[in-house]
């Protein structure tokens, strides 16, 4: 009433609020209205407004239904429940049920006690409707503790005189029993006595209570079996024979709900118990025959009846009756009925498979039905129906349907067909045929393990390989869009290419086809280049091309071209496989020697490469790498003669030896100019490039020498013998002519200065080297105060003898010499390196030159 004066009053009636919300055109408007209303309600709550409490509660419920948070209203519920008037209580209980959530722990704790107090009072109220309210609310939301507290009250109410109360008490007991199964015994007796009532409401609740009791405890089940069966039969008989009762009549049948509940309870009681089943036989037969089935209500009863017959130990006559009803349902035009019939048939399968087989044709029709639910049910049923006898015809039907089915159904259908085919395949030819068809129709939905299994089967069945590869080739040409089909086909073409081209292993049913080698390569190439091919498919195509290149030598040039296009691919797998085909590029001899002496890691890892290159491969390729370990050192790195075989030792699957494959790439890449942008080769570069850094002029610092250590720990587990081998090598070379092993080097050269080192080693002291340094002045000015300094890493000791002179005459007229003595404590493992610093004066100006000497000959 005071809307104008106090805009925040909660004076709006429920219908006005609803009108306002309905008038909103956008979600934002609605949110604004709701927010305003919530604010008003909150204000009213904090003021303790009495009059409009129930109106506010109704509004809150509406708002809650729209999905907005309303927890601030929960205390209001309690206040309403505590109020004296019936409408308030009603709304309060309703609000309690709607707004409160059993799972909200904290809320329930405080509420429980409050609610229990109130409910207790209400349960003892004289007004039966209030009692009913409390029972209703409790029945819907009470938790286990509340149930325990209030169960004595509820039990008492089960005996009350009012039918209303009794029925609600019965349902409340259901909840109690569900929450606290131990209390089931208390309700058993009362439940049975309730069955004698006349009031349908009470009966239906009582029946449901009995059902719940049976679920809750075994003793209850036994007790009920003994005591309430005749009561049930009587009820059913009365209700089906009774004359027209306008109260409960639905479409000419009296209280179908009661029918159904009783039938359900009979099913629970009769399951597994022969006596009970016998007892109810007659009444079931009566219901099944008498009920009219032209209305939905009648059909509902028949449905329940058939389920019951299937569930208990019925006589065969009764079973036949049931199956006939099912058959009638199946041919009904109403979709609902057919759905229900299919459901029933699934259960009937366990009982009587023969009968169900008779309806196979109809079921197959249902698989193609327009309705999604029916299709799903029918497909499941068909799956259950498959046995050895009808597997082939059923599969044929299903595969035919696969062609025309729509996308979302294809998934299920494919999975079912694959499992049927797998389970029931007696001969491999049929299995292969079906799988090929499925792959061409729905390859995208076929799961990975299915086509893996297919490949395994093909590789095991040698007589069918030719047939497989030819069929797959044809299928690939026809529809190359299905991923799995492409993968399997490409694999087969690679494996059995020669069978394809030469028509090997023809079966009687085949006609010869002409496929040339280049046709086969074409097919694989097309699959490789297709834009929709993913990495796995492309990888398989590449490997297949590799296999073909060795089987069909004339095409190998072309294959090389195709494969080479993928060399620069950003995906590691593809790049790897492309590089497998190449000749390994030639490595510079000098740098090879440097590498070998300087870092045995290279040889350790290449030894690993050789060792791991032994057969894991089931390929029939000429495997040129099966040689004893030391020799491959030379073979692998001596690259002119070895060909693809060395590299195709990597089998079709992903590289299992990480280091091996990396090395394969690394060795090719160190010499090729185009650096591939993948991190692994960079790592490898470092591994092998310790010795080759002089070639690349990298600026390694003294700390760089930790790299060899790193690399060494990476490949640590490998044979130390190789190290010895090399040590032997290097020492043997050092034993030979000293001077020729260590040629003089130009240690440093700039525009102004040139330094040359000459080496001498004494026999028997391989660690020590004497270096004669000679400095030449390349300019036309004389250098004065010439000082030469050198720094070496920690494992080297250096002794500098005094220079011959401090003045360097111009233009190389004469040179200054200085002698250095160097001891390498890690001789044979780490090479010499030295940093030099030269200071001199030219025409009174100070000059400084610095440099690093890395090109010491190996073995120093």
């Amino acid at each position, binding site marked *: 009433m005071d809307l104008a004066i106090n805009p925040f009053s909660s004076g709006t009636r429920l219908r006005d609020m609803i009108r306002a919300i309905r008038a909103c055109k956008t979600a934002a408007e609605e949110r604004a209205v709701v927010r305003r209303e919530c604010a008003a309600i909150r204000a009213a709550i904090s003021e303790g407004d009495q009059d409009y409490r129930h109106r506010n509660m109704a509004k809150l419920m509406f708002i809650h239904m729209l999905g907005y948070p309303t927890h601030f209203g929960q205390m209001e519920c309690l206040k309403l429940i505590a109020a004296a008037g*019936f*409408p308030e209580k009603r709304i309060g209980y*309703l609000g309690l049920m709607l707004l409160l959530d059993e799972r909200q722990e904290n809320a329930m704790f405080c509420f429980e006690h409050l609610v229990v107090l109130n409910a207790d009072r209400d349960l003892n109220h004289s007004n039966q409707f209030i009692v009913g309210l409390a029972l209703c609310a409790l029945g819907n939301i009470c938790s286990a503790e509340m149930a325990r507290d209030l169960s004595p009250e509820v039990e008492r109410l089960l005996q009350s005189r009012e039918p209303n109360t009794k029925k609600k008490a019965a*349902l409340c007991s259901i909840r109690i029993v569900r929450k606290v199964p131990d209390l089931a015994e208390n309700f058993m007796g009362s439940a049975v006595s309730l069955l004698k009532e006349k009031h349908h409401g009470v009966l*239906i609740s009582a029946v449901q209570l009995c059902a719940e009791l049976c679920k809750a405890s075994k003793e209850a089940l036994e007790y009920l079996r003994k005591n309430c069966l005749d009561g049930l039969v009587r009820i059913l008989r009365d209700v089906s024979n009774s004359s027209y009762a306008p109260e409960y009549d639905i479409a000419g049948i009296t209280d179908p709900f009661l029918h159904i509940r009783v039938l359900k309870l009979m099913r629970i009681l009769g399951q597994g118990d022969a006596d009970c089943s016998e007892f109810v036989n007659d009444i079931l037969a009566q219901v099944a025959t008498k009920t009219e089935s032209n209305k*939905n209500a009648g059909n509902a009863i028949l449905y329940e009846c058939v389920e019951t017959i299937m569930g208990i130990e019925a006589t065969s006559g009764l079973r036949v009756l049931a199956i006939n009803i099912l058959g009638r349902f199946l041919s009904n035009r109403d979709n609902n009925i057919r759905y229900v019939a299919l459901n029933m048939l699934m259960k009937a399968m366990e009982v009587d498979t023969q009968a169900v087989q008779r309806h196979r044709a109809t079921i197959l029709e249902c698989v193609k039905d327009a309705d999604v639910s029916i299709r799903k049910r029918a497909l499941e049923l068909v799956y259950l129906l498959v046995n050895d006898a009808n597997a082939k015809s059923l599969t044929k039907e299903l595969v035919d349907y696969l062609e025309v089915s729509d996308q979302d159904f294809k998934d299920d259908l494919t999975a079912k067909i694959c499992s049927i085919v797998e389970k029931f395949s007696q001969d491999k030819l049929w299995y292969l045929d079906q799988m090929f068809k499925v792959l061409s129709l729905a390859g995208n939905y076929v799961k990975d393990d299915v086509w893996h299994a297919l490949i395994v089967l093909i590789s095991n069945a040698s007589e069918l390989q030719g047939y497989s590869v030819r069929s797959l080739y044809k299928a690939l040409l026809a529809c190359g869009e299905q991923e799995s089909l492409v993968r399997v086909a490409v694999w087969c073409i690679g494996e059995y290419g020669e069978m394809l081209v030469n028509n090997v292993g023809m079966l009687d049913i085949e006609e010869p086809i002409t496929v040339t080698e280049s046709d086969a390569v074409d097919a694989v190439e097309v699959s490789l280049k297709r834009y929709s091919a993913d990495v796995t498919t492309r990888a398989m195509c590449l490997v297949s091309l590799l296999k073909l290149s060795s089987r069909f030598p004339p095409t190998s040039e072309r294959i090389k071209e195709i494969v080479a296009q993928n060399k620069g691919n950003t995906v590691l797998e593809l790049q790897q496989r492309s590089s497998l085909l190449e000749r390994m590029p030639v490595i510079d001899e000098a740098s090879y020697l440097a590498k070998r002496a300087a870092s045995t890691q290279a040889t350790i890892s290449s030894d690993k490469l050789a060792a791991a290159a032994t057969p894991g491969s089931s390929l029939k390729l000429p495997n040129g790498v099966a040689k004893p370990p030391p020799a491959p050192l030379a073979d692998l790195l001596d690259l002119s003669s070895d060909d693809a075989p060395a590299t195709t030792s990597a089998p079709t699957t992903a590289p299992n030896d990480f280091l091996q494959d990396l090395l394969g790439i690394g060795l090719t890449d160190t010499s090729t100019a185009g650096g591939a942008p993948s991190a692994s080769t960079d790592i490898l570069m470092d591994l092998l490039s310790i010795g080759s850094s002089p070639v690349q002029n990298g600026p390694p610092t003294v700390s760089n020498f930790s790299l060899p250590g790193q690399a060494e720990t990476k490949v640590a587990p490998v044979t130390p013998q190789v190290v010895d081998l090399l040590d032997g090598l290097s020492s043997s070379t050092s034993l030979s002519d000293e001077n020729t092993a260590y040629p003089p080097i130009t240690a440093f050269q700039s525009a102004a200065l040139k330094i040359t080192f000459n080496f001498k080693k004494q026999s028997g002291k391989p660690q020590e080297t004497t270096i004669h340094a000679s400095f030449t002045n390349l300019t036309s000015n004389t250098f004065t105060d010439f000082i030469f300094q050198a720094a070496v890493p920690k494992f080297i000791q250096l002794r500098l003898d005094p220079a011959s002179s401090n003045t360097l005459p111009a233009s190389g007229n004469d040179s200054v010499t200085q002698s250095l003595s160097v001891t390498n404590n890690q001789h044979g493992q780490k090479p010499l390196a030295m940093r030099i610093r030269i200071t001199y004066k030219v025409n009174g100006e100070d000059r400084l030159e610095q440099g690093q000497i890395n090109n010491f000959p190996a073995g120093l």
Partner: protein
Amino acid sequence: MGIRFVVMVNKQGQTRVAQYYEHLSVDERRALEGEIVRKCLARTDHQCSFVEHRNYKVVYRRYASLFFLVGVDNDENELAILEFIHLLVETMDRHFGNVCELDIMFHLEKVHFMLEEMVMNGCIVETSKQNILAPIHLMEKTS
């Protein structure tokens, strides 16, 4: 157990009545309603009235602009639930006289009361229209 929820939704997807017999949070409810409504709205009139959703079934029927959705357990008799929906509509019709969506909206609490009388804790309690409407008449007389 039995009935899990009763929801009435109009053709635009707005929920008019929602009564849940199992416990779901507000977000879950909204998500659930959205999903199911979309499925039901997409079906034509000639398809059957049962939709399988997650681990339970939804039985639905359209009356004018309103969809009645009842979620039930898998072992429940679907045809019986169809009857139940019809019974609910008839009860409302008897009370409001030619019930329409607006009636339901403006008398939400009465609809809830009716539902309460008919279904408790997921089980069908009362199927006689007279018995269902009696307390409601009483309440209207007193207030």
